[in-house]
């Protein structure tokens, strides 16, 4: 059914697989994700759709092998099929010409950022990207991000690659050099929060990308329920891209602690 047609190791415990998905690929857009289960024993997990190939009828997923489902998925061979694949899920990212967009990603957060970065780049935006990681080994997809950015910066906490420091340390300079029209941030909650606090320009629209921690992928399990303004919403239905100015951050913070990962 959903056969794996190519597989690569692209970083430490980081794998890239291309899967045949004729129906999903026709509907998929940047920002969408899928629920995937490698076999009938493994829990289904949410992964961002990174690439779509209409002529081959495939989608590409990139994932870190950090739990039993992703390890199992990473152990499948070319020619194997996955047990379950549901999608495309979530809301696609709104892509148009915004002007100068700042794309910020930390470690594996870059996986969900990459398709959006590429689409923004294609739609004639100037993409300025900042990638961050604790150390060089944890940095994800840097060459791919470089290819779709006019400017790219790398920050590592130990200085092993790029500049030493946190992503937030780089923002002052970027904002002083140009007007930024839109910001995307993907990464763990602490990084998202740190970045948002450090953005010198308050009024810029800010989008955050949050991987939905969900069992079903369409809003039934409630694991990914967050508060947007005064109402509750499921990240898998209304996200993964969310408007930072509308989210109740204190709710999200405890919620992110609540989840498994």
């Amino acid at each position, binding site marked *: 059914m959903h056969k794996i047609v190519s597989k690569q190791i692209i970083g430490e415990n980081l794998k890239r697989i291309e899967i045949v998905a004729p*129906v*999903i690929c026709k*509907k998929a857009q940047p920002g969408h994700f899928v629920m995937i*289960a490698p076999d*009938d*024993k493994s*829990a*289904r997990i949410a992964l961002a759709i990174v690439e779509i190939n209409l002529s081959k009828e495939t989608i590409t997923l990139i994932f870190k092998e950090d739990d039993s489902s992703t390890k199992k998925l990473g152990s499948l061979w070319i020619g194997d099929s996955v*047990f*379950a*694949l*549901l*999608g*495309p*899920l979530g809301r696609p990212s709104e892509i148009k010409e915004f002007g100068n967009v700042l794309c910020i990603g930390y470690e594996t957060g870059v996986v969900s950022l990459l398709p959006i970065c590429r689409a923004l780049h294609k739609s004639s935006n100037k993409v300025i990207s900042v990638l961050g990681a604790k150390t060089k080994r944890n940095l994800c997809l840097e060459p791919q991000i470089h290819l779709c950015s006019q400017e790219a910066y790398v920050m590592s906490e130990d200085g092993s690659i790029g500049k030493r420091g946190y992503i937030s340390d780089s923002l002052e300079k970027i904002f002083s050099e140009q007007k930024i029209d839109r910001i995307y941030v993907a990464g763990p909650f602490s990084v998202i929060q740190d970045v948002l606090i450090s953005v010198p320009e308050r009024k810029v629209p800010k989008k955050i990308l949050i991987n939905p921690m969900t*069992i*079903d*992928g*369409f*809003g*039934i*399990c*409630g*694991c990914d*329920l967050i*508060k947007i303004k005064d109402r*509750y919403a*499921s990240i898998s*239905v209304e996200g993964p891209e969310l408007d930072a100015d509308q989210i109740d951050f204190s*709710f999200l913070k*405890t*919620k992110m*602690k*609540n989840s*498994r990962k």
Partner: protein
Amino acid sequence: MKRIIENIEPVLKRLKSFCEVVLGFKKNQAVLEAQRCPQCSHPKCIEGCPLGVDIPGFIRALREKNNLKALHRIREQNGLAGICGRLCSAPCEKACILNEEEGVDPINIKALERFSFDQGQSKIKQIFNAESANRNNRKVAVVGSGPTGLTAASILVEAGYEITIFEALHLPGGILRYGIPEFRLPEKALDIEIEYITSLGIEIKTNCLIGKTYTIFDLMDMGYEAVLLAIGASAPQMLDIPGAQLKGVHFAQEFLMRTNLAGEQQSLKTEMPDLFGKEIAVIGSGTMALDCARIAVRLDKQATIIHSQTEDDIEATGEECNHAKEEGVKLEVLTSPVEILSDENDCVKGIRCVRMDFVDKDGKGLWKVVPVKNSEFAVEADTVILADKGASNSLIIREMKDLKINKDGSIWIKKNEYMTSVDGVFAAGGVVNQSLNLIEALCQGKEAAQKIDLYLQKKNQNEEKNI
């Protein structure tokens, strides 16, 4: 003669596994209970059953020890005998004429239904009639493979339509699959029922979320002339009390899905501790709350149900409540949660509750349950499960702007017609009424299928006229 009760697994064995609790009748018990049936000339039980199953008829077959015939008789009206025989609220028994006689209990119809299925199903050879299938040359899509969708599909296929069920999850069955635990409905019984339904010639497409993988318009473009939305009401509803977002608060939907969809339930004991704590408080009042608590005690946890009304108001059969209590589930009835308490790390450490009592405020006999002053106390817990009624899943509704929605989020349908505000799109089951029980959902599935049949017949006539 006294009503015969089904055999039950001993408590100690139950707590060690997810094995089925109610074991059903032995052969002689079934015959004895069947013989108790007075075979009324105007059977009230049939009137009491929303599906109108020929109850005296199938009981007669059981008396003759013809279990297969009994099952056939039930299936004429109800395609899910093995499931209803286990989970139905059995309104037929409340209607049974024996209730009118003092000291006599009604016939145990539910147990006899289950017996017919358990004994009869292996003998059934189905029955895919390629000639009659799709004799109308029209396609109908059923969205959702819960009890409503399965029932509607089986009726429509027999009426001669080509049926495809689209199911978002990787396995069919809806709540029967991911909501109701193994010890109340063994997966095997559900699999047999679904196998039977697919053997009628129905295709079930799993991993297919309507609204995303395909929209309803796509289905229409694919040639489906009517669409039935049987998507249930499972979206979780947040409890509006302080602390509901804390670490350790989960929805029943999550708890049930994680435990019911886990491949090997025995391994849960080792895997769950880091996910759910040791002392679990379940806030809610129905079978969903009971099911969560009963799973919890099987995973070596303490479970307390917090319920604002009396024990009699718990929306589950008395039998289920008793089983839960035998297994060590604590019930805090007439108790309402006020706040979920947190420790310094934003983790749950308990629930502040208040006692409730009946008060007749204006002396008019309108007794109401209200909080008792100065009665607050804390229930200790490291995990809270919110087991309130679900709401309709908004996904399809969002994708289809013309679909009219009621205030409570359920899909609007034309009364008794099951047609939504969109021509050719029907809805039934949980999605139109969130508080339906199983038998009511089946009944809606059946009625909706009949309305779809009428709609398509009319369409046919109109087309013929125009030729």
